[in-house]
């Protein structure tokens, strides 16, 4: 018992929902006609491709191919997020790759083996959607954490120097910066755990219920995925900070220049 398929006609109906947005765009002179159309068009094309290759990946369900697919997803996520953020690619590429791979893969295997109890740990049906959810979240928080860390260091750097001057070692002097970075990264998920279920149904649950799962099953998955995302986010930021901090200071414990790319660039 799955969700009813959507016919091509049905999909056209869905796309027609773009019309009101274009009318509003015209009415309020938002100047977003091209943006809205391009975004919708790109979404359709990108998802069509995903649908196409997921069709084969699910059909083959080969553990090796599934794993490679996950690795490619991680790499694309890393590159695109570093490109979007204001940090220096050269310094951060390896740390971010490691800090994304290690928690994602570890938690994914933990999830599939211990929580769901799968025998095939690399089953596409679990590996790809769960991996995708962990990845998307972990990348976002990693970037938030690092931007907060380096942004703070460049605006409140004197606070770091003050602590060093009074005799703190580097880690001690960085404590307020590390703390605020970890909090910035964990706060969004903490907030969503606090309110989940009160306001809206999370996307994963919606999907599972439409797919024919019992609400009880969907809820158990939701609990498991939330805590897994939380754990992989925190691990990711912690590993990133551990890896990037030593690269960000010289032998005199002074912050190196050029780590943050300026906002105007």
């Amino acid at each position, binding site marked *: 018992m799955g969700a009813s398929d959507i016919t091509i006609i049905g999909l056209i109906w869905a796309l027609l929902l773009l019309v009101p947005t274009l009318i509003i765009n015209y009415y309020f002179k938002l100047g977003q006609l091209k943006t809205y159309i391009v975004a919708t068009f790109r979404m359709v094309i990108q998802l069509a491709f995903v649908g196409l290759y997921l069709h084969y990946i699910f059909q083959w369900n080969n553990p090796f191919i599934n794993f490679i697919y996950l690795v490619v997803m991680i790499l694309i996520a890393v590159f695109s997020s570093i490109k979007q953020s204001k940090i220096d690619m050269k310094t951060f590429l390896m740390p971010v790759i490691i800090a994304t791979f290690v928690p994602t893969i570890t938690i994914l295997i933990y999830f599939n083996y211990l929580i769901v109890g799968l025998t095939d740990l690399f089953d596409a049906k679990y590996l790809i959607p769960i991996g995708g959810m962990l990845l998307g979240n972990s990348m976002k928080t990693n970037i938030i954490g690092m931007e907060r860390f380096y942004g703070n260091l460049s605006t409140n750097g*004197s*606070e770091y*120097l*003050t*602590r*060093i*001057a*009074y*005799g*703190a*070692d580097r880690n*001690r002097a960085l404590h*307020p910066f590390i703390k605020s970075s970890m909090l910035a990264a964990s706060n969004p998920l903490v907030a969503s755990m606090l309110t989940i279920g009160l306001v809206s149904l999370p996307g994963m649950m919606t999907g599972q219920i439409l797919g024919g799962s019992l609400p009880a099953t969907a809820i158990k998955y939701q609990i498991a995925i939330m805590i897994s995302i939380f754990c992989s986010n925190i691990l990711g930021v912690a590993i990133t900070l551990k890896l990037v901090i030593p690269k960000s200071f*010289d*032998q*005199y*414990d*002074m912050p190196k220049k050029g780590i943050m790319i300026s906002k105007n660039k």
Partner: protein
Amino acid sequence: MEIRLEDVGYTIDGQEIIRNLSFSLKSGQKAVIAWPSGTGKTTLLKLIFGFTIPTTGKIFIDNQLLNHSNVKHFRKQMSYANQVADLPKGTVQNSMDEIFSFPANEHIRDYKSIINNLLSEVKLTSEIFGKNTEELSGGERQRLTFILCQVLNRPIWLLDEITSGLDTDNKSNIVRMVAEASQTVLISSHDTIWRENNAFTFINL
């Protein structure tokens, strides 16, 4: 503890801030740098503290060449009171608790009572403990940072414009206390008041 500079130069972005500077301070000696604004007074103190690395020349502290392997050790032998006199955020109380929890300072257990005793000498009261460090006036910060130098009792003091915001009474108080200290002291200041006390020598450009 001795400080010695040999042909120290510092250039940044093609601009020569300090050029071929040499001098030495014997243990316990006190010197004032009274160069005009923008001629590298603050930079010089930063160079000695190891916050900035000289482009040319050598800095010796206690007869050892200051470098990356000993800079962390020597920083703990120096108190650097800078122009903005930054203190960790929070109340003065929290700020002091934090400073004296650093491994380099935790041997000073009775810091609260020492600070309390010194407050009156610089015309401050213990009310200051409840204030937020960001709300302190420039003069309050300067005096508090100076007290910290005394409590930390490190062998070298680097004092950057420590008297600039103070009234005459407070100025002469601090000058007297610096003159009486056993420390090796390097002061950057425009104040002529330092010239009135013969404990200080002057380093010329």
